[in-house]
């Protein structure tokens, strides 16, 4: 590697620490109770969703509020092809779920990338809600109540792993290890992308899109590609959710899901890809603690977000290095010349 990529670990030690983290996750199910195995699986799914969104937010400077829709759409795709009582193997459901999310993000991205900054936020939000209303208002996916589905079978080369055949205390293990594998794969895929020419162009777009255009890059095509890849990875996370929970409801599609993913990114630190994972674990840990301490889980969450956004400017990853400033985002450079922005950049 010629030069360290901004959002990836900056030293060999940091890479080793990351690998050690994955190692700890691999051992944890044997140590904790089944309840926490389930919670950790949920947190890893959240981490995948946040990672996929980070390709847009951290790497390209595009803040999307419709990202949860692709996650939920993929979970509903699993429901449609593998309804209760008729399970299908993962090698069928995963590609189809990712394909559905990819096609939806292609259409949504092609339209919403015509806009920038504030408009982009609102338009992705509106498109996300459009997909939300399809599942919320029609009978297609069980309406407002949601529906049970047949969890995709973990099978390959004719061999099927049946969780029910395991001892009771280990039944959550298959989903856990599939999620862990997928989380590691998602991280490595994104790390590879960020280190490639493609990732460098996205970085260029984030810092100064005009200059990238002047250099002859068709930046719209790069942004659309990033949007579709992020959508497909969110779809993979949504598929994992269906495999883990066996249940879909409109909440998976709604914009609160997107906001949660954004929060995970902010909590972890916007300048680091691994921050999305740390943020996701912090988010679910916070929810768990809040639930045990008080009945008002969302109130605690709201106050913590408020404090994080007011005081924790570089996220958890930035606590050790207070001098590092947050990099500017695309919106601040090419966005709308609003009153406040003028003072910052004029």
């Amino acid at each position, binding site marked *: 590697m010629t030069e360290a990529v901004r959002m990836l670990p900056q030293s060999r030690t940091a890479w080793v620490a990351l690998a050690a983290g994955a190692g700890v996750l691999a051992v944890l199910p044997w140590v904790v109770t089944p309840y926490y195995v389930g919670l950790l699986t949920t947190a890893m799914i959240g981490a995948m969703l946040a990672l996929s969104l980070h390709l847009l937010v951290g790497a390209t400077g595009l*803040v999307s509020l419709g990202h949860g829709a692709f996650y939920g759409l993929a979970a509903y795709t699993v429901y449609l092809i593998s309804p209760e009582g008729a399970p299908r193997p993962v090698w069928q459901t995963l590609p189809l779920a990712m394909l559905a999310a990819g096609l939806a993000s292609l259409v949504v991205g092609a*339209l919403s990338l015509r806009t920038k900054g504030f408009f982009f936020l609102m*338009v992705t939000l509106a498109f996300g809600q459009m997909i939300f209303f399809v599942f919320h208002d029609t009978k297609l996916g069980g309406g407002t109540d949601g529906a049970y589905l047949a969890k995709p079978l973990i099978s390959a080369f004719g061999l099927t792993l049946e969780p029910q055949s395991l001892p009771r205390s280990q039944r959550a293990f298959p989903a856990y290890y599939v999620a862990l594998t997928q989380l590691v794969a998602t991280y490595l895929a994104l790390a590879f992308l960020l280190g490639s020419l493609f990732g460098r162009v996205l970085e260029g777009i984030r810092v100064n899109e005009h200059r990238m255009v002047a250099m002859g890059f068709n930046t719209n095509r790069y942004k659309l590609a990033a949007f579709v890849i992020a959508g497909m990875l969110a779809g993979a996370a949504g598929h994992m959710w269906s495999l883990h929970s066996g249940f879909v409801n409109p909440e998976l599609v709604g914009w609160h899901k997107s906001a949660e993913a*954004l929060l995970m990114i902010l909590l972890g630190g916007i300048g680091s890809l691994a921050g999305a994972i740390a943020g996701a674990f912090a988010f679910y840990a916070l929810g768990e603690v809040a639930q045990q301490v008080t009945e008002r889980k969302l109130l605690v969450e709201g106050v913590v977000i*408020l404090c994080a956004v*007011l005081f924790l400017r570089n996220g958890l990853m930035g606590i050790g290095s207070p001098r590092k400033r947050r990099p500017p*985002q695309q919106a601040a450079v090419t966005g709308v010349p609003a009153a406040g922005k*003028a*003072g910052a950049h004029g």
Partner: protein
Amino acid sequence: MSPSAIRRSAMAGFLSQLLNGFQYGLLLFLIASGLTLIFGVLGIINLAHGSLFMIGAYVTFLVVKSTGSLWLALPVAIVSGLCLGVLLERFLFRRFYHREHLDQVLLTFALILIFEELRSLFVGNDFHAVPVPAALDFSVPITSGFSYAAYRFVVIAVCLALAAALFYWIERTRMGAVIRAAAEKPEMVDVLGIDARRVHLTVFAVGAALAMTAGALAAPLTAVYPNMGDGLLIISFVVVVIGGLGSVSGAFWSALLIGLIDTLGKAYGSTLAVGGIGGVLSAAASMSVYILMVVVLLFRPTGLFGGRT
């Protein structure tokens, strides 16, 4: 019924849907004008604007419950909206003018959670009907066989009066001139040495008060319930996109357009649902607002009524 009677009753139904759409559009305008002004002048994305609508409705419910008077509830909603707006701007939003969109989104998302939880803590999670005042609890006959609820006419009148006042403020007063300038060329306002902080505070407070007033007016029409501002927030965003960012007159026309299209699409969309293609048409009618937004984005990305990118 004779054919002419059927035609008359269909006509009456259509007229009442038109009026409903008009009234819905005016309420949308009260919300969307605040959103578009707050973004245009302050550069703030306020996702909590829908929560302000919800708070306005609950304030109305509480005032009506304790005093029995909707007439008192309206000024209370306006004044408490102004106060809440001032507090939010002074202690929170002021710190976020120079921050990225992501931070603003999360700040306002946190506010949504906090407002909804406080509502649940103090008022609970039940649906509550708010009675229409007895003096207005009648229908105004318009033609033979068609009448329209008097309270809805009052809502239309109050909205129109507020819209007129807002336009007068923006177009004819000194502060309005500064607001228009700040929405168009903020650098120039800074250079001229105008105290932008006072303008920011006023714009935010007025925007918040408009949203809360809309909630107060809507309370007797829809009842009050948790998350009631959520759907309206999204539709208001569509209004702002179609109307053009920062443009109050754009927001006005696009709110009316969307109010009519949404109401008529939902009222008559189900009648299209015959056969396969009818089902598609019916679904399209219920999503007509979003389809309109897509079309506008394709051909006029800066909005139908001027505005800027």
